[in-house]
């Protein structure tokens, strides 16, 4: 029972960092949602704010780590051109049922050698690789706002709603990346 180096990195990128991001998001959203006047005692505010600060910054850090490992470590393995032989761009993918040493995941998907798979790259991967970078930017901005105003967000419902919008937008961007990442790794795993 072992993982190859590539499998280890895909696990770190998607499963470990993705799970951490999700956990921090869920906790952070619950914390932000309950920051309303009259719901907490002063002691309760002190206790809860510490957790919210940690959750918000962990979410931002997990998002940065996920996009950096995804872009600079995992993505090159996905997109490398292995299949071209002469004029045939996908010669290495002939009869392939999964990506292999002669057919990268991108080659495999674009070759349509195993069904209509090209759209997974053209739509799924192309959107995922770009929009995912919005997640750390928005999560960092939201974390800063939470840290900057702290308990004062309780008294400013409109500002709190704005922070929640940014927080959820960061999650939505990560969701596109995470969902397509999971599907793509199912259809064309990095081996």
């Amino acid at each position, binding site marked *: 029972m072992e993982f190859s180096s590539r499998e280890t990195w895909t696990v770190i990128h998607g499963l470990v960092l993705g799970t951490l991001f999700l956990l921090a998001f869920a906790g952070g959203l619950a914390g932000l949602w309950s920051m309303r*006047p*009259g719901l*907490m*005692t*002063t002691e309760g*505010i*002190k206790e809860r704010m510490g957790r919210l600060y940690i959750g918000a910054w962990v979410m931002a850090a997990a998002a940065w780590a996920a*996009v950096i490992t995804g*872009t*600079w470590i995992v*993505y*090159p393995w996905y*997109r*490398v051109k292995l299949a071209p032989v002469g004029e045939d761009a996908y010669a290495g993918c002939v009869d392939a049922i999964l990506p292999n040493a002669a057919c990268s995941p991108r080659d495999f998907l674009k070759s349509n050698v195993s069904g209509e798979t090209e759209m997974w790259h*053209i*739509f799924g991967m*192309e*959107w995922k*690789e*770009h*929009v995912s*970078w*919005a997640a750390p*930017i*928005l999560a*960092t*901005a939201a974390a*800063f*706002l939470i840290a*900057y*105003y*702290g*308990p*004062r967000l*309780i*008294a*400013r419902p*409109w*500002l709190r709603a*704005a922070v929640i*919008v*940014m927080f959820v*937008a960061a999650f939505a*961007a990560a969701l596109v990346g995470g969902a397509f990442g999971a599907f793509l790794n199912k259809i064309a795993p990095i081996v």
Partner: protein
Amino acid sequence: MITDFDPGRHDDEGVAPELAPLDLADKPDGPAAAVMIASGLGVFTLGLMTTLAVINGSVKSFLEWFQFDQGVGALAGKSTVAVLVFFVAWLVLYLIWREKDVVLKTSFYIGLGLGILGVIGTFPPFFEWFE
């Protein structure tokens, strides 16, 4: 939209009396406005670079330069430029507005508008339209 910091502008303890014992110092809204607009600019740049790379081969070559032979392609430049724009815009606006009050609603909507445009720019059916 931009005024000098007025510590008495908000009545947080009046709205939420439970905050009073915490004795919180009021803060100017400028730094918050800075990060709202900067994050929108960062996401907008991401979408702009994604679409420009499709439209213009020179832009794509420039963005590929950031990959330093790591096989990342133009995504290296798109993400690096967007992140740089975010942090530089944040720093510059923060330094300008750190002691100012800036209308947060306007700043948020500017950031939101830029962010929506940026997401549209990263959406494949949109940028592939320029191929």
